[in-house]
């Protein structure tokens, strides 16, 4: 028994290392080869920033980035607002069919993205809407709302709602209570929801692919288009560079968020609740 246990203990770091290797090795290979002179993954020819230069001077990249930011920015703001209101309604009120409604809200998270994508496409065609920025925004709002509701609801369950009564008792009417008490208390949850929804929306490829038009490719779709092109030309370098930049950006986002929260007296109400409690 003890032999097994000590064996297990000794092998645990190794096992953990393997797991991390499995997760991060592909990313590291991609990053390393983005600096390769040769535009393929077969062998290492030498260090160069050639692919980054090419990528950054590629007009389509900047256009795609603009589209991605516009779609994600708008969609995240909209779904955060709608999701927060939905969560509030679900938490504070009782109404007929509430459970069914709540269940149906989370259902899209279990439906294959391809199915969601194709159904959205059919829906937009049915409505006669031309595919483009607007359809992308609508699609992104649709699939990020459940996430926002989940996160904000979790926060609401930890709030003492006597605080709203206390505010009214101290002279605040409904609107003032919402502004001065409810929203500041919900703020950490709302921010967390937005920070989660942002990469969901920004990184989405499958659904986006169905509801965009050829001229309006956001970054993930552009990446896919580049891969299709590289299959023919064999030039993977630009894709490696783009992949590296997107990974770094994805790592920076939560880092920036954490740093923002660390800044003392960063003047947003309720922010100190997010910070580590001082003893």
């Amino acid at each position, binding site marked *: 028994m003890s032999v097994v246990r000590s064996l297990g203990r000794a092998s645990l770091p190794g096992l953990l290392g393997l797991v991390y290797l499995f997760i991060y090795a592909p990313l590291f290979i991609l990053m390393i080869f983005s600096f390769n002179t040769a535009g393929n993954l077969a062998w290492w020819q030498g260090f160069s920033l050639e692919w980054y230069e090419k990528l950054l001077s590629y007009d389509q990249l900047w256009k795609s980035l603009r589209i991605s930011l516009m779609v994600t920015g708008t969609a995240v703001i909209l779904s955060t607002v709608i999701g927060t209101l939905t969560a509030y309604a679900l938490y504070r009120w009782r109404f007929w069919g509430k459970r069914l409604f709540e269940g149906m809200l989370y259902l899209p998270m279990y439906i294959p993205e391809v199915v969601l994508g194709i159904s959205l496409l059919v829906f937009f065609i049915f409505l006669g809407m031309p595919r483009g920025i607007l359809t992308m925004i609508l699609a992104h709002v649709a699939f990020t709302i459940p996430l926002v509701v989940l996160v904000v609801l979790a926060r609401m369950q930890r709030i003492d709602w006597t605080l709203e009564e206390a505010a009214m*008792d101290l002279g605040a009417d409904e609107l003032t209570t919402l502004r001065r008490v409810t929203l500041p208390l919900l703020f950490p949850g709302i921010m967390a929801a937005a920070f989660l929804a942002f990469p969901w929306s920004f990184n989405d490829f499958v659904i986006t692919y169905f509801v965009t038009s050829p001229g309006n490719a956001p970054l993930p779709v552009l990446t896919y288009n580049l891969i299709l092109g590289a299959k023919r030309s064999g030039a993977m370098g630009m894709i490696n560079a783009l992949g590296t930049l997107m990974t770094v950006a994805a790592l920076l986002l939560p880092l920036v968020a954490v740093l923002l929260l660390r800044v003392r007296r960063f003047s947003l109400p309720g922010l100190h609740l997010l910070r580590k409690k001082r003893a």
Partner: protein
Amino acid sequence: MNTPSVELRDVTKHFATAIAVNRVNLTIARGEFFSFLGPSGCGKTTTLRMIGGLETPDSGDILINGERVNEIPPYERNVSTVFQRLALFPHLTITENLAFGLKIQHQAYDVIQEKVAATLELVHLPGLQDRYPDQLSGGQQQRVALARSLVLEPEVLLLDEPLSALDRKLRKEMQVELRRIQREVSITFIYVTHDQKEAISMSDRIAIMKEGKIVQVGSPREIFERPRTAFVADFMGASNLFSGQLIERNGKRYLKTQSGLVIQVPNSDESPHSQDQQLLALRPEAIGIFRKDQNPPTENSFAGRVLDRAYLGEMLEFEVLLNGTERVRIHSHSRSPADEILVDEEVLIGWDANSASLLREE
């Protein structure tokens, strides 16, 4: 004649199908420390919330300072509540918590600063202005909650079991503090509690509630010494009840129980309104217990056998069987001759007839 601070007229409130508050009538004078006392679910908190405007009565009227306030929302009533869960705003500092109501009233900055400082002084909480509530101890949070309400100088302060989260020692301390503060500000305090000792030690008057109704209103002494119903008697700790019929002998009144005990009844002027079954309540500490060889000093004494004895720290609790059927609970000091009395011993017990009280039928 002063207008009463708070007046309840036939106030009734239902929740779903259950009745929470049932035709409550009450007048609370200005500057009074008034307590609602009762077990959980008796309607005391609901009554308080209706005065505060957090619940609306189904029928009846609530008057504050002589004005009917039924339809007035909480934020326009000149009352303030200290909540059981305190409900301090966790995202605001202590100063900001106190200034919350004043800012809504658009008071000048200097005035707010001055009032906040003065109120923190009043509740003995200086030097913590810039902390957040979660950085304070339970007792300090308690004082902040109190200060946040007091700083608005309300007509009435409502307190909903505000001390229930504190440990015993701190609770005692805060009880004294609350009384001191109430005397200093002379605002009407309406206090809700299920702790009879707390209510007795703090209140000018107490209303005992049961199942949505007020069963007795009176000074702590009246309620403690002259409970009107078996419920009040039991709730105030007078756990010995004798039931029987009233008889008169030589100009004195006695209660004759079914087991044949003849107990002298206090000679009060209140005459019971029925001649049927009567209840007599007796506090455990009012009864003396003596060994057979000692001479019990009272005329109202009975022989019995000790069924059980328990050591409760500062006192002993005996259970004595009288006449083979009546069980009586007795409390006596641990450091008294009673300490030598053992289980199964034959004893004499007795009490001053005036320490018992004849109950009204419920």
